[in-house]
């Protein structure tokens, strides 16, 4: 390499090389010291790449400000003392091998807790359905149909009060979780895209940062302020639909359900599309700039070879840290989403089970009411799942396409 460039043309290479060294100094004193360290070593002597990598990682870590993320984590998991940097470091060094086991344990614990907590609710529903059946049959003995109708309404009201209260609690829980999710994304973004900028370049960092900001805004407006109230209305419509013997509102309920699932699907498709398209373009621009820079540096006579090697190591470390932050963010996202998703799935199954159990004894309106509430929970699962997938996909695309 060194021999390939004639000595008299060497001065041509100095301005870009100086610029590169300046850039390395600028983007963290790290690389600067690494470059100096490398420059000191005489050609032929082996450069301590591992040491450089460790040093780079430590220095890079000191550049990031994780305090906001840590604050948000403290709010999220108050019982666990977890620092974001530790999580990233653990993931980078590959210590996540028993994660699957932990996740299984967590899921089982959660399901057990939900079952214990909701067992009473299930029993109430069954009892109310059975009492309604008994009362209705008992009052059918009279010529007067009015009393059987009114006693049915009384019990139906008790049932829907219970269902709606449970649903409202679940709904406010979901709202809280989504807000937490968005808050976490908001504090994760600056650190993550700083890492992307260091590892890959400013254009992709900027472009993806814009996408994520747009995504957070869209999720807040569309999902939190629009879709969740629609789920509320859907449940109400379904419950009212079964109050009367005839189905007056079933079409409206179906329309609302279709609307919700279409909006979610469209949102996911759009986000995937935008991400993939940006993922094709922006990293390529950065790669072009970077390769021009590194090639230039590598062709500096005398120290070019060492700089090329060291640059690779430094960039590799930056990519590693960027991916570590991305994966840690994804893991925390999954942890935030997992609890409500499990909860809602459990509730869906429980209400379906209750509907199945009361169907033989009870009026078909009561069965319909219980099973429609379970569909409402299913919609909540869809909403929170889609929101989680939106952010996970974005992080995944950014992580993969900027490496």
């Amino acid at each position, binding site marked *: 390499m060194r021999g390939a460039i004639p000595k008299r043309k060497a001065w041509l290479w100095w301005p870009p090389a100086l610029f590169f060294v300046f850039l390395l100094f600028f983007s963290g004193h790290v690389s600067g010291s690494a470059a100096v360290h490398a420059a000191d070593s005489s050609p032929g002597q082996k450069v301590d790449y591992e040491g450089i990598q460790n040093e780079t990682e430590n220095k890079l870590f000191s550049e990031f400000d994780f305090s906001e993320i840590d604050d948000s984590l403290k709010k999220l998991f108050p019982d666990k003392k977890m620092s974001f940097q530790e999580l990233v470091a653990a993931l980078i060094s590959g210590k996540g091998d028993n994660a699957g086991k932990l996740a299984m344990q967590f899921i089982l614990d959660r399901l057990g807790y939900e079952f214990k907590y909701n067992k009473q609710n299930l*029993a109430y529903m069954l*009892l*109310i359905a059975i009492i309604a059946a008994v009362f209705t049959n008992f009052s059918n003995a009279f010529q007067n149909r*009015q009393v059987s109708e009114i006693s049915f*309404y009384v019990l139906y*009201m008790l049932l829907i009060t219970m269902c709606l209260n449970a649903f409202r609690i679940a709904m406010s829980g979901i709202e809280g979780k989504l807000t937490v999710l968005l808050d976490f994304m908001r504090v994760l973004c600056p650190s993550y895209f700083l890492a992307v900028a260091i590892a890959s370049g400013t254009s992709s960092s900027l472009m993806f940062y814009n996408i994520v900001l747009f995504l957070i805004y869209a999720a807040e407006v569309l999902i939190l302020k629009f879709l969740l109230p629609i789920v509320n209305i859907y449940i109400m419509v379904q419950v009212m639909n079964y109050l009367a013997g005839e189905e007056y509102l079933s079409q409206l309920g179906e329309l609302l359900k279709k609307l919700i699932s279409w909006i979610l699907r469209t949102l996911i498709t759009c986000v995937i599309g935008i991400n993939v398209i940006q993922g094709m373009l922006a990293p390529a621009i950065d790669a072009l700039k970077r390769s021009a820079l590194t090639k230039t540096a590598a062709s500096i006579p005398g120290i070019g070879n060492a700089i090329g090697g060291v640059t690779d190591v430094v960039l590799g470390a930056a990519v590693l840290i960027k991916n570590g932050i991305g994966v840690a963010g994804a893991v925390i996202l999954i942890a935030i989403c997992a609890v409500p998703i499990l909860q809602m799935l459990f509730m869906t199954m429980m209400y379906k089970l209750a509907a199945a159990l009361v169907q033989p004894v009870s009026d078909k309106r009561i069965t319909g009411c219980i099973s429609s509430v379970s569909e409402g929970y299913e919609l909540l699962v869809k909403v929170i799942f889609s929101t989680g997938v939106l952010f996970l996909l974005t992080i995944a695309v950014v992580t993969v396409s900027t490496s």
Partner: protein
Amino acid sequence: MSIIQIGVIGVIGALLSIQFKSGKSEYGIYMSVGISILIFACIVDKLELFVKTVAQVNQFINIDTSYIKTMLKMIGITYIAEFSSSVCKDAGYQTIAVQIEIFSKLTILALGMPVLLALLETIREFLA
């Protein structure tokens, strides 16, 4: 009392009141009223068992017991109304019978009003 005894009492009462139908028909009506009240008294024992069962079921679920009370009350109102209106019909006074039925229906409706209000309140709270 078992259903056989009740049946026997009812049939004997009906046969006896046929005897009075040709001459003094009002005695037949008095007799049928008396026997109806007797049978009603026999059922009241059983009704108590029913109310007790409902109270027991109430203990399983700590829902607002006033609704269950309301429902029992409605059943009682319907029972009494049907009883008295059929006695009136027997005596040949359709108008009074219909009035009793209408009164009972309106009473049940009035009892059901808090239920309707609670239902509306639930919906309002949920959508608020």
